[in-house]
């Protein structure tokens, strides 16, 4: 039952205790999936991404440096591969053309061949990105382009099919009004669709837009929000604004054309760890350290739609992109229910139909038998002979 329903889950959340949770918002159910049957804190999920082939496979990056493959169709973990090298947890996980791209905290970015059977530990490609990486993000339009950034590690854009040097290396902003160097702490990166621009949010509560196409390597736009480090960011369906979350649980929508605050979302009590917007619907999924997954509606009206308490601290989430959220639950219920409940009654009806055919053919002969049958089973369609 759980395995059949796994594909209908709307949101997949990874927790600190190593459990992958699938949440179905229509049925308001959350199911736990673990690789080994028991939760283990060493396997805490630090990165999630969709695997190849639509949304049937999820790549789960754990703290013990393994990448597990989880099938949403069957609801089981299918295999794992160990990705050694470097120190720290995964800061970014992506898949491109049958390869898996991983980046760890100490700055080792590796590209691995993605097949379960051959668990060879040789990466196809290794790039040193610089220490203290906080995020590695893949460009959805160009799967071989990734961007990395971190604490005292400026934003760099890499082309994995190109040279060893980054395609774009961002420059720090000018010294501030006290002539002090402005520190760098890029916490999250997003690629803006339709152009080459990148947006980052920093631990010093800044949101910056970079344009590799322009000659200036400094940010094209910079705004600030709040007083606390911004930990997560996502693009809204329109493409003109981003939603950022900080360590106090404040969510804000910031317009990128003017650098203005459009509005805030209430509800979270803990640090925001994962944010994702649906590509067409105005829905935002957020998860954080307060152990609750929330779905907000971003426009008309702005507010909370669903709130699900999941008992462990949530680290990252994946929102399914599909458009029809409502139709799914009806389909699997019918094949499940029909064989379970109606087998006996089907047999009953079959026997009664056979009796009806007999009655039509041999009216006079089997009248007595029919009467006894009528006494035993009250047929709704019983006609007088």
């Amino acid at each position, binding site marked *: 039952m759980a395995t059949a329903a796994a594909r209908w889950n709307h949101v997949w959340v990874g927790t600190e*205790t190593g*459990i992958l949770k699938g949440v179905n918002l229509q049925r308001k159910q959350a199911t*736990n999936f673990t690789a080994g049957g*028991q*939760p283990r*804190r060493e396997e805490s999920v630090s990165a999630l991404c969709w695997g190849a082939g639509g949304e049937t496979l999820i790549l789960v990056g754990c703290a013990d440096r393994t990448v597990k493959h989880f099938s949403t169709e069957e609801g089981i973990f299918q295999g794992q591969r160990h990705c050694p090298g470097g120190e720290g947890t995964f800061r970014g996980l992506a898949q491109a053309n049958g390869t898996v791209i991983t980046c760890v905290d100490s700055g080792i970015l590796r590209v691995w061949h993605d097949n379960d059977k051959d668990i060879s530990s040789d990466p196809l490609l290794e790039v040193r990105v610089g220490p203290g990486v906080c995020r590695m993000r893949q460009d959805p339009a160009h799967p071989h382009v990734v961007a990395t950034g971190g604490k005292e590690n400026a934003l760099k854009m890499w082309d994995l099919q190109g040279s060893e040097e980054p395609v774009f290396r961002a420059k720090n902003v000018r010294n501030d009004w006290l002539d002090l160097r402005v520190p760098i702490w890029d916490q999250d990166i997003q690629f803006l669709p339709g152009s080459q621009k990148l947006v980052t949010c920093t*631990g010093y509560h800044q949101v910056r837009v970079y344009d590799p196409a322009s000659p200036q390597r400094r940010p094209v736009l910079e705004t600030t929000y709040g*007083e*606390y*480090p911004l*930990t997560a960011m996502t693009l809204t369906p329109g493409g003109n604004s981003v939603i950022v979350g900080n*360590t*106090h*649980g404040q969510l804000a929508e910031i317009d990128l054309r003017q650098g203005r605050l459009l509005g805030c979302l*209430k*509800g979270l*009590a*803990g*640090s925001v760890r994962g944010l994702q917007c649906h590509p067409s619907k105005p829905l935002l999924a957020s998860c954080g*350290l*307060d*152990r609750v997954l929330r779905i907000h509606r971003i426009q008309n009206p702005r507010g909370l739609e669903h709130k699900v*308490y999941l*008992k*462990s*601290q949530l680290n990252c989430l994946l929102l399914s992109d599909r458009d029809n959220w409502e139709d799914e639950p009806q389909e699997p219920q019918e094949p499940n229910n029909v064989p379970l409940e109606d087998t006996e009654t089907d047999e009953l009806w079959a026997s009664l139909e056979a009796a009806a055919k007999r009655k039509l053919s041999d009216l006079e002969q089997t009248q007595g038998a029919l009467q006894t049958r009528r006494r035993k089973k009250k047929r709704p369609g019983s006609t007088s002979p």
Partner: protein
Amino acid sequence: MAKSGDKSSSTEKKSLKRKAAAEELQDAAFAGDGATESEGQPPKAAAFPPGFSISEIKNKQRRHLMFMRWKQQQRKEKLAAKKKLKKEREALGDKAPPKPVPKTIDNQRVYDETTVDPNDEEVAYDEATDEFASYFNKQTSPKILITTSDRPHGRTVRLCEQLSTVIPNSHVYYRRGLALKKIIPQCITRDFTDLIVINEDRKTPNGLILSHLPNGPTAHFKMSSVRLRKEIKRRGKDPTEHIPEIILNNFTTRLGHSIGRMFASLFPHNPQFIGRQVATFHNQRDYIFFRFHRYIFRSEKKVGIQELGPRFTLKLRSLQKGTFDSKYGEYEWVHKPREMDTSRRKFHL
């Protein structure tokens, strides 16, 4: 003047009212504002215009009189109803229906979905492997550092001293204007497990920061109602060096469990029952009351208690995931008054 007049001459007032009512009955034609229905007093009760209320009387004195009369009537009726109910209950004896339970804010508390179910395995695993696991597995024993904000005044200093007598294996150090972020690594190297900082404002302690040391959560509380030992009436003699027992009351939600475990990890595992001392952290409506008592069992069921030690009330403001870092740390729970305090029946601990 008016008040005493009212109280002493209530009977006169009543007769006055009756006279007034009688007069008004005669002037019913002129009276746009008549008296309220006086049931049972003057038998000639006039027909007052329907939908009339006392508040429409323009004359303040008359209005006050009418209201007082109405109020006394209400009180009489209520008393009569109570007596009647009591008589009925006595008449029924054992068959009387049980008394209805009065509604209190604690009864009406909105059910919190994060309430911990003792059979829940996931929460049990989460708790078994959190930052306090080393204490609850008896691998470390607590060693506490108590300090204050810079330049504390007398009350705060005395509170710190008294707290250090309550919490075994604790040391008080004067804060010489040192930054907490620099104190913490030093504490870790010296094997301290917890850091308590009592914040002071205008010569009274008003805040408490409790940080579990190796990399544990930091809780920030608002502290109020602080009573030092000499301010506690009928208290016992000073506490001895015995390790006290701990009572943690009413920490039901997941957040409450984390805070409860935090308090439990301040005290050593093995309470010395000879000392008969107990420290209580009682949570009610999100306020945590700290008391320190000495008890003695006079018989199987009767206990006598003496309050020793300081007493204060705490309210959780935020729970931060790492050690103290209010600017860049990640918060597990932050109290947001405008979002969380909208309902009087919803509590978070």
